[in-house]
């Protein structure tokens, strides 16, 4: 398990030869051992074997989507054989949650919530319109989350940021969960995210000027919700 929690706001990535980690630029707190840092260019440096976005198309897609939080690669340094190191990451005093992906389900999360993840995980930009048709796209536009989200797939660990810490809600068949768009962090599994504007609790408390948007999440999986309505 290369990424582990140190406390509620800091994670530690253990690097071994051939095991690299991708992290948000500027999130490195300190490191020990033989570690090398490089900007993660979307083209992918030759021979590095990074997953991630492939080639120019990916880079263009990322830039267009606005899901372009710069990332850094941390890997075991030049001397190689037998070396290793540990890198500690944290960002802006935000809480961190480490999510383990077993390869069977993808994680959907916004790029700016990604703190670090195993470099061998695949990330791709997903147009929300694919998720819930036009309503998915509307969701992005309405909630200010953008029309794109980042999807992480593969087997490994991902460190996700949240304001105030996040908790999990299991979503099962026939039991949808309704989440405040501002408190929504991300989700794992086969979930459908729909915008609904019917009930309107925000209106009920007099918050928000008449707009009462909720995310209705149904299917099979887990949704992560933070204890705050603050975006970053």
């Amino acid at each position, binding site marked *: 398990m290369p990424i582990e929690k140190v406390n509620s706001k800091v994670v530690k990535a253990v690097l071994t030869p051939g095991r690299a980690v991708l992290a948000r630029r500027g999130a490195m707190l300190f490191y020990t051992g033989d570690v090398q840092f490089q900007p993660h260019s979307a083209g992918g440096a030759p021979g590095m074997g990074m997953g991630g976005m492939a080639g120019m198309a990916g880079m263009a897609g990322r830039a267009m989507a606005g899901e372009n939080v710069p990332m850094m690669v941390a890997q075991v340094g030049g001397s190689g054989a037998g070396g290793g190191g540990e890198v500690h990451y944290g960002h802006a005093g935000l*809480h961190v949650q480490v999510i383990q992906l077993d390869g069977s389900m993808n994680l959907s999360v916004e790029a700016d919530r990604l703190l670090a993840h195993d470099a061998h995980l695949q990330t791709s930009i997903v147009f929300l319109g694919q998720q819930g048709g036009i309503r998915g796209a509307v969701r992005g536009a309405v909630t200010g989350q953008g029309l794109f989200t980042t999807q992480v797939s593969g087997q490994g660990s991902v460190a996700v940021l949240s*304001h*105030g*810490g996040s*908790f999990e*809600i299991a979503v099962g068949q026939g*039991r*949808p*969960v*309704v*989440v*405040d768009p501002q*408190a929504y962090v991300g989700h794992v599994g086969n979930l459908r995210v729909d915008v609904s504007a019917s*009930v*309107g*609790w925000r209106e*009920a*408390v*007099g918050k928000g000027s008449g707009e009462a948007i909720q995310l209705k999440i149904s299917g099979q999986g887990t*949704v992560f*919700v*933070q*204890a*705050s*309505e*603050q975006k970053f």
Partner: protein
Amino acid sequence: MVAYEGEVTFKHAGMGGGGGFKAAVKRKMTGESLALMECTGRGLVYFAVDAQDVTVVELDNETMQVESQQLLALDGNLRTDVMFSGLRGATSGQGLFTTTVTGVGQAALLSAGGPPIALEVSPQHPLVVDPDAYVASRGQLNQTFVTDVSWKSVIGEGSGEAFSLRFDGTGVVYIQPEER
């Protein structure tokens, strides 16, 4: 609220809910703002505000005074009202009135900067707290407003003004680690 599951309906607990008509009118007049919504049905509702700490307080047929902005949620069978709390608000900007919660049930309190600290007050040991750190209090307490305190100006905070809340009697006062 950040999320819910199940069949839950929400409505503005204006005049009808949250302490009844009289309390609502008082609230309107006193400016002690407590915006509540009522959740009914069958399900689970998750509440959180701005990443603040939450503490659940059990009330057993007693009255708790609470700063309205520190009240996150409460059992529907608890009653809320507004009470005159002395001449503190004029200077601390928190209103001259405070919200009270009465009955049997649970209330969830918010606190900034960490979990609230429960301070015991006894006749031998009165307590003086910073109004900006005050969250709630319960018991047989008499609350007065003290101006003659110098510790705030000593540490250079506040422009010469130094105001505090003094509690006499027997009870518990909850304060938060971070000032508003």
